[in-house]
Each structure stands twice: as C-alpha cells, then as structure tokens.
C-alpha cells in the first residue's frame, strides 16, 4: 500500500513537472532554430544544420522542397509537376518515389544557388543557432534602450518602495500614536482597489503634469509607500523585540536613528523580499507602460517584446522566442540566487488571509 502510494505520488510529480517544463523547452528549441525549421511539420525538438557535397565542396544547405514523384525542374529552380507548366522552357526531369525521395536544397550562403539531391546525399548535424539571440537584439532596433529603461525603472522603483515603505512601516509599528491602527486599516483596505478603477484619473493627472510619454508616471508612485509593502514590513517590524529600541532610546537615540541603526539592519530579510517583489512587478509590468509610454523608441522590454509579433502572419518565431528568453532569463537568475527570499515573500502574501 505504502509503495503504491509512493509510486502514484512520484508519477504525478514527474508527469506534472514535465508538463510544466514543456513550454520552456519548446521556447528554447524554437529560439535555437533557423526560421524554416520552426515551421516544419512534424516539429523537431532539435535544431539541425544540413550538409551536402556540391561541386566537390561540402556546403551547408537548406532543404526547400521534397520531391516524391517524377518532376520537372526548370532552370531557375522551380519544381513543376508537369512538363507543359514550363511553357516550352528547358527543364530537367527528375524521378523520385515515396521510398526514394529527392530534395531540392538551396545553399545557405547563397540561397539563389540550388541543387536536387537524393536524401542519402544530405547529412544533418545538431547545431543550435546561438546567433539568433544577437540577431533578435539587432533586429529589435531599440533593444538597448528598452533594457536601459527597464533597468532604470527597476532601480528607481526598488529604491523608492524600500525607502518609503520601511519608513511608513516603522511609523505604523514601532511608534505608539493615537489613531494609528485605524489609519493602518484604511491603508490596508486600499489594497482592494483594482488598478482599472484608478487608471483613467491617474492618466489625466500625469497628463496634467506633462509626464505622459516619459518614464516618470511609472516610478513616481513607488516613492509613496504602497499598502502591500507597508503591510509586509510592518508585520516583520512588529516581531523585532521592543527592548532593542528601548536600549537605544536610553542611549539617547532619536526615532530616526533607531529606525536606521536598529530596525533596518534587523529587518534585512524582509527588505530583500520587498525589493524582489517590486523588481518583479516593474520588470513584468505591461499595462502601466502601455498607458504612459507613447514613443516606440522609449518602451520597456515587456512592451517592446511585441515588436516581433506580426498581426498578419509571418511572425519571426525564432527571434520572438529568443527575445522572450532574454526577458525571462534575468528573473530566473534572480530566482536561483535568492530563491529563499522569493518563496518567503510569496508565502507572506498569504498571511493577509
């Protein structure tokens, strides 16, 4: 019974985690392929490069067309089903069958050069196209600008929210004053206000201030202590022994010195959590930049990623996936470095319940 139970648990875990990882694998696989291999059916998981001997030289080639019956190849390389389609121009007859197909291939270095070869003459090797990453960045003209904007916003909002919410959390937890807890309840209640409700007036406000089209609307707010961060830090501050503050007070320290020298050092883990969550939010934010940024050359990464997405087909999937990886990678790296704080932070969001 125990063994059966264990097997079921492991089976579910393995199947589940494979399913969860598949989209990542598919993304990576696509990002490393040349464009024509992203559109092969059935799909391959591995990126290949094809080689063939042409005019006595080993060349990298791209399969263009598979020929499985008798066909007529015109001088310009067009493959025809019937000779008369050539309209009297000279054609070469090739005979192929389901069992012995032929491939029309083009040279990778010069796609106007082509040849018709037997399948056995074409060899393939697994070769990831790492250059897709560089090409995607190059093609997305403003990538460095997007990256700079995003990083700048991340730094500003992280500094802003850590400074302002730790001050506010101190005021809400370490100093006793009349009406404190009632006011805090009001602050907590504002967490319920959905962004769409305040979106329009905020836009009007920033427009009146002349900030539309600049990054300012995206970071100014973080310097005014968001409710959730205050809640998180307050929770932590309350757990720091009162004696620490009292001892400092006896030594003649003022509240601000106590905040700076006693509380902040003791609350480092919680500050890291706030910084991480804020970084994540800013890095991922889409709606904010969408509303406030107007110039395509001044987007953030999240907004700029749409560059490769073409509404009328012809999306360059390999570049889109490569660029997506570039947007995801820093977050993953951060997770590997600070996973303990991540998990702690997310778990703490559940404490409100």
């Amino acid at each position, binding site marked *: 019974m125990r063994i059966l139970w264990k097997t079921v648990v492991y089976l579910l875990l393995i199947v589940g985690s494979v399913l*969860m990882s598949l*989209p990542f694998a598919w993304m990576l696989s696509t990002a490393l392929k040349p464009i024509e291999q992203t559109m092969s059916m059935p799909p391959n998981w591995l990126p290949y490069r094809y080689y063939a001997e042409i005019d006595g030289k080993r060349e990298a080639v791209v399969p263009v067309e598979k020929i499985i019956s008798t066909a007529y190849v015109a001088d310009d390389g067009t493959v025809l089903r019937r000779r008369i389609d050539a309209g009297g121009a000279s054609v070469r007859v090739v005979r192929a069958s389901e069992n012995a197909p032929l491939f029309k291939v083009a040279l990778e270095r010069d796609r106007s050069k082509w040849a018709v070869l037997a399948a056995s003459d074409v060899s393939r090797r697994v070769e990831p196209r790492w250059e897709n990453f560089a090409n995607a960045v190059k093609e997305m003209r403003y990538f460095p600008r997007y990256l700079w904007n995003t990083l700048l916003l991340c730094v500003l909002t992280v500094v802003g929210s850590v400074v302002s919410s730790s001050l*506010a959390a101190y005021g809400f937890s370490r100093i006793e*004053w009349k009406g404190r807890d009632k006011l805090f309840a009001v602050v907590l209640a504002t967490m319920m206000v959905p962004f769409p409700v305040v979106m329009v007036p905020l836009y009007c406000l920033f427009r009146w201030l002349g900030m539309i089209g600049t990054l300012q609307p995206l970071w100014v707010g973080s310097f*005014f*202590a968001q409710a959730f961060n205050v809640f998180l830090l307050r929770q932590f501050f309350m757990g720091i022994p009162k004696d620490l503050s009292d001892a400092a007070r006896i030594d003649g320290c003022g509240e601000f010195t106590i905040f700076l020298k006693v509380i902040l050092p003791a609350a480092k883990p919680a500050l890291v959590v706030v910084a991480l969550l804020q970084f994540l939010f800013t890095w991922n934010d889409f709606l904010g930049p969408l509303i406030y940024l107007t110039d395509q050359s001044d987007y953030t990464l*999240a907004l700029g990623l749409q560059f490769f997405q073409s509404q009328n087909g012809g999306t360059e999937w390999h570049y889109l996936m490569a660029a*997506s990886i570039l947007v995801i990678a820093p*977050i993953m790296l951060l997770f590997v470095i600070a996973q303990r704080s991540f998990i702690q932070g997310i*778990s703490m969001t559940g404490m409100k319940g």
Partner: protein
Amino acid sequence: MTGMERRRLVLGLLFVSPCLIGLAVFTLYPLAASFYYSFCDYDILSEPLWVGTANYAEMLGDDLFWKSLYNTCFFAALFVPLSLVLSLLVAMLLNQAVKFRFLFRALFYLPALVPIVAGAMIWLWIYNGEYGLLNYALSRIGIRAPQWLADPAWTKPALVFMALWGVGNTIIIYLAALQDVPVQLYESAEIDGAGFWAKFRHVTIPMISPVIYFNLIMGIIGAMQIFTRPYIMMERGGPDNSALFYTIYIFQNAFRYSRMGYASAMAWTLFVAIVFLTWLGSKSASGKIHYEGR
C-alpha cells in the same frame, strides 16, 4: 493629550507621511475623480461635461459591455475553481516526503516567474494553428484540434489553460499553509483511525481554510482584471469579441475612443462588484473558516 503623546503623534505621522500622501494622491483622489468622471462626458481634451447617469444608462444597452462582462465572468468561473483545486493538489504532492523535493518545487513554481508578456508569446506559439506544438500533439493521438485563438468557442478555455500554467504563487501559499498544520493533529487523527480522506476532510481543510479563502478572493479579484494575456494574444478582443474582457473594454474606451467618462462608469461598476463579491465571500465564509488562536 500630553506633550509626550503629541510628540509621538507628530513623529508617527511624519514617518507614515509618504504612505498617506500616496494614499491621497494615487488612490483616494483617483477613486473620487473617476466617480465624478463616470457622470460626465469627458474626452480629456475639453473639460468634463456633466451628463448625469447617462453613462450608466448607456452601459445597460451596450452589447459589448454585456459581452465583456460575460467573457470575464466565464473566465473567472472556469479559472478560479480549477486553479484552487489544482494548486491545492500540487501543493499536497509537493508536501510529501519525496526525493528531489526541491527540484519538483522549482519546476512547478518557475512558470509563475515568467513575465506575463513573455508567457503570452510562448503560448501564442504553442497554440499556433499551423505549426503549434499543441495541435501537433493532439493530432498524434487522433484529435482534430480547433484553431484555439481564432475560434470564438475556444479562446477563453485556451486562456484558462495557459493561466493554469502560472499558478505557482497559489501553490506556494498553500504549501506554506500545509507546512504550518501541526503534525500532532494528523497523529491523533490516525490514532482515531482516520484514513487519508478523513484526515484531508477534517484536519487539512479546516486548518488551511483561511488560506483557501484568501486564494479564492485574490483569484476572483485577479480574474476580474484579466488584461495582458488576451490583449497581447488577440487583436481587438479576438474573434467575434470572444476575448473582449472587462478591463480590455475599459482600456479601449479610455485610450482608443477617448471616452473617459464611459470608461470610468465601467470601472466603478467593477469596483462595486468586487467590493460586493468580497463582502459576500466574507459573509458566507464566516463560521466556516477556522482561525487558529482567535
């Protein structure tokens, strides 16, 4: 008030002043302003013009408003229960004493870290009708799959499915709650002869009920505001407006058609609905939720 008390009041207010200013400027003022705008005709270029309840009256007769409301509720009704049940299941699995537990946890959690925009791009590719991985896999087991994002009947299920991929945060919150359940409770239940189901029903569920409730409320609030994924993945509300969600319609009215008044009326309706749902939730949950030590 003694001098000491007054000094502390001033100090306290000084410390919380960034928070209070932020509250006033970035929450309370916009809340009031959007309430006012909701009774106005306002195109941002000229002054708001008072029109009374005309915006609300227009909403009642606006097919797209009802469609967006229906789509949003449909999504929430499908996504919230599924995400609550599935993530509790996964959290319970991850709470078992298994080897490589850390690895499993990371694998289940990582999708939640993927920026929504990037996640949307991945799924756009997976759902691709011609070269997508999903339809190829389904065709291998003999299922003729729909053109997910181009078929009005399948856009919302497709969005639910991909949103379920990113429920890692909910899993982590459950996991933290599960780890807080005292082991003695399970031990004494076992002594009383409780099997797996009885332990789950009478120990686990009551002990983590506050977290279930929290996840439910947050799930509903989040689902009501779904925006980024459908906005990126489908143009203008998708085929037959099947992916025109409430927030997308607010956004379109505000920033495409410059109808700030109408958008505000929709936004306030959403706000009232969310407050009402939360109130309803807390009312129906009171007594059913077990709070430790309260």
